[in-house]
Structure formats: structure tokens, C-alpha cells
């Protein structure tokens, strides 16, 4: 049964230094509040896993939480660069960042394989690209039935999977809808999982197309209203596109980034 915890308790209990951690949410339902709590608790040497690192990993990387990044598209959508990610890769600031790079299709397949308790996934992809030549997490594989050559990618089994969702009931059953991304896959692929939610309700009203994560498949649930902002929670608030655009200037220089994090994230110690 999912434990109901405060966000700071949940992060303290589930996330350990050196863990591989996936904070997922494809544009929608990105768990920013949980990311900020990881920053406040000064977790270190994390292997961060996310298809689109987005602002949330720009913040964690810039604050020195990460040792390695496993990803497929590291930009600020529609805006440009993730400056903190670039600074880490190009100049090793604040620490060197190892990269394990894939395509979206490959990352999605790796999560699905992890959720399915398979050692690897098979897809048509990567062939002819330089990723294929450079990566030790990509390998050609022959179909045992036809002999056709396909590409194998290893499953992702993070130590901790973190997602945001619209709501949960008091038992810890989670409901989410809209763009569902890889939320289900990451919770099922991870050894431990944390779901932050907009609100805890008495009863989950059934919604067509909604994803349910049953309480017995989730390690912990924590209430975090507006916990996806500046990403969004469908039915609760919209994506703050203005903030995504402003982040470009905030994050461009180390100083302006650090003062923003001091003021808006670190100052919130114990606030939850």
C-alpha cells in the first residue's frame, strides 16, 4: 500500500545519494516540487533519467545534484538551450556530467522494457546514426525468426521513479489524465516510486481515458499543490509558457541562476 507522506519526508526516505532517479512527465505533469525538494535536501551523485531534461533537470544539474544524465532531448521546448545542462557538458560546471544519450523512441522502449521486467527492448531505430557507433547501450540484434537485424536497448530500472498526477484518494490510488507520457511505465519500472499529486480526495471520480496507478503499485504519495508548475496539470492549471521563456535569461549566467534558486527554491526549506 502506498504510504502517504509529506513531500520532504518522502524525498528523504526514497531518494539516496548515488541513486538513479527518473522524474518523468512528458511536458505535462513534470514533478517540479519533488525536484526542488531534492535540491533542498542536497542529494548528490544522482544518475538523472528523463526523456526531456527540461527546466527541472537544468535546475538539479546546475545545483550539483547529478553525476550522470540519461536522456533523449535536452532543450527548453520552443525557446532554445538548457543553459545549465550546456554549462555542465561544455565546461564541467558545477561538476562534470556524464551523458548517456538515446532517441525518444529508444527511451520509451527502455522504460516499457523495465516495466515489463525484460532485460532489453527491441526496436527499429538508430540505424545509420552516430549514436549507434558511440553508445555501449545500443546493439544490433538478429530476429530469431526472420534473421532481420534490429536494435536492442537495455531496460531502464531506476532506483526511484517520481511522477506528478492530478489526484489520489486517501488509500493512495492515483489518477492522472491528459498527456499521460511515460508516467505509468516509470512507476512500474522503478524499484521505489513517489507520486506527488495536486490534491487528495475522498473518492476518485472515474474519467474516460484516465490512467489509474493502484495504491499497491506505488511506494509513496505526497500532496504537492501546483507541484508541476511551470509545467502543468491538465484540469488544474495551464503550462506557464511565459516562465519557460523567462528561464532563458534567468539560467543563462551562473550568478543569476544561483540567486534565483536561492530565492525560489532553497528559501523554501521546511516550508512543506
Amino acid at each position, binding site marked *: 500500500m502506498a504510504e502517504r507522506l509529506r513531500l520532504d519526508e518522502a524525498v528523504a526516505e526514497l531518494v539516496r545519494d548515488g541513486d538513479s532517479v527518473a522524474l518523468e512527465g*512528458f*511536458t*505535462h505533469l513534470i514533478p517540479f516540487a519533488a525536484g526542488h525538494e531534492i535540491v533542498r535536501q542536497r542529494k548528490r551523485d544522482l544518475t538523472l533519467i528523463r*526523456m*526531456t531534461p527540461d527546466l527541472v533537470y537544468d535546475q538539479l544539474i546546475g545545483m550539483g545534484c547529478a553525476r550522470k544524465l540519461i*536522456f*533523449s*532531448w*535536452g*532543450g527548453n*521546448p*520552443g*525557446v532554445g*538551450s*538548457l543553459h545549465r*545542462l*550546456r554549462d555542465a*557538458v*561544455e565546461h564541467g560546471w558545477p561538476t562534470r556530467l556524464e551523458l548517456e*544519450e538515446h*532517441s*525518444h*523512441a529508444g527511451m*520509451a*522502449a527502455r*522504460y*516499457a522494457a523495465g516495466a515489463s521486467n525484460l532485460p532489453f527492448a527491441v*526496436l*527499429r*531505430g*538508430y*540505424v*545509420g*546514426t*552516430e*549514436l549507434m557507433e*558511440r553508445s555501449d547501450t545500443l546493439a544490433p540484434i538478429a530476429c530469431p525468426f526472420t534473421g*532481420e*537485424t534490429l536494435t536492442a536497448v537495455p531496460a531502464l530500472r531506476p532506483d526511484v521513479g517520481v511522477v506528478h498526477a492530478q489526484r489520489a484518494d486517501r488509500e493512495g490510488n492515483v489518477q492522472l489524465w*491528459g*498527456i*499521460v*507520457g*511515460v508516467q*505509468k*511505465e516509470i512507476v512500474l519500472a522503478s524499484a521505489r516510486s513517489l507520486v506527488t499529486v495536486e490534491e487528495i480526495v475522498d473518492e476518485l471520480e472515474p474519467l474516460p*481515458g484516465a490512467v489509474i496507478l493502484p495504491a499497491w503499485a506505488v511506494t509513496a504519495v505526497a500532496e504537492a499543490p501546483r507541484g508541476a508548475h511551470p509545467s*502543468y496539470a*491538465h484540469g488544474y492549471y*495551464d*503550462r506557464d*509558457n*511565459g516562465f*519557460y*521563456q523567462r528561464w532563458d535569461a534567468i539560467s543563462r549566467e551562473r550568478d543569476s541562476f544561483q540567486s534565483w534558486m536561492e530565492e525560489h527554491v532553497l528559501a523554501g526549506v521546511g516550508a512543506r
Partner: protein
Amino acid sequence: MTFEPEEVMTVVAARALTDETVCFVGIGLPSTAANLARLTHAPRTVLVYESGTIGSKPATLPLSIGDGELAETADSVVPVPEIFAYWLQGGRIDVGFLGAAQIDRFANLNSTVIGDYDSPKVRLPGGGGAPEIAAMAKEVIVIIRQSQRTFVERLHFRSSVGFGDGPGDRERLGLPGKGPTIVITDLGVLRPDPDTCELTLTQVHPGVTVDQAREATGWELRVADDLEQTEPPTSEELRVLRELRSTLEAAA
């Protein structure tokens, strides 16, 4: 009506989309062009975004590939593993619409790094959905500004495959789609030569000379014998395009 180079590029890209095609759309210029097509000559074009939205009909231009409006106006929203496995790899996409930081003469694309991969001068976002879109879509439209920086003799990194090292390479690699059929720039339009697969300038935009296009290309640019002139954007195309773009600025 006067217009900017980026506007003519977007309008020409929109015109390249015929009605009732199923189009896998990347963010930025591809999304702008695909929505322009949908709001003008191709109302039945199906827009698919990699966030899992199928048949999105946004009234405002999305900033990201996963804005709420894309889900609200979609015929269906599917999980991300499904959009790549069943719909893209499954061969359901007619046209993939891609941008890039660099392109070479065989329309291979770099969206990964400028400089060396292990110590890059500029770390770009990376391939994202593009490598499999370039492989699987029945055909690919590329939109990219044309300059010595973007049209290069040798890519710094091959993120997505166009025609590889030349004729026969797509077949050899087992890539099911036809590859890039048209490359649209701010100067004109290039298409792969049917025999050599090499990008050939087939069309120039109003006011652009062949010499300009040559100077903006990092290899010896081939030019078609029957070079065409782009029809200037109509006032209706420009009106809809500007209205769309103003919705994006309003979000700032």
C-alpha cells in the same frame, strides 16, 4: 504585402503539405507550418505530436510539443511508448516534419553537437524524436535556414539519416521511409536528385539569386536546369501566419 525570409520559408513548408496527410510535427517552425497548412489549404491534415496527441487542432500556436491545448483538441491522446511504437514505427505517418542545426548534401541531419561529441563547442538538445521520424515516416520535409554554418560539407554528428552516403544507403540500412523529399530554406527549395540523392536547388524565393544560395552552401551546390521561382506568399497566407505567431507572443 512585404514579408520576412522566415515567413516565406514557413509558407512554402505549409504548401508542401497536401490535404489529408498524417503529419508528425516537431516544435518550432515545423509546428507553425503544419498549423498554417491546416488553417488554409489542408484542413483535413492530421497533426501528430510526439507527446502522444493524434489529430490536434490548436487555435493558438503551442510553445512545447505537449501544451494542454494539443491534448484538448486531439482526436486521441496515447502514451508516449505507443506513439513511437504503434504509430510511427508501425508505419502510420505520411510526413515527418523536421528541423536541424546542420544538414549535408545527402540531407543527413545534425541536432546533437557543434564540435567534438566528447568536448563539444555547443551542446545542442539532441535527436529527440527525429532519428526514428527520419527513418520511419513515408517521407520527410526538412525546414532549415541556409548558410555556411548550417549547410555543411561534413556534419559534426549524424543524428538522423537522410540518404546516408548516397544512393542505396537507405535500403541497405533497412530504413522503410523514402527519406527527405524536400528541404525548405529561407532562400529556396532543394530536392534530392533522383539518381544521385544529392540535394539540388530546384526553386528560389522572390528576390533571391542562385549565387546567394551557392554562397550559403558549404559544398558545390547543384542547381536544377529548370529552376523555378517561388510564388510569393498570398495576403491570406501571411494574415493567418501572423495571427498564429501572435498567439505565441501573447504567452510571453
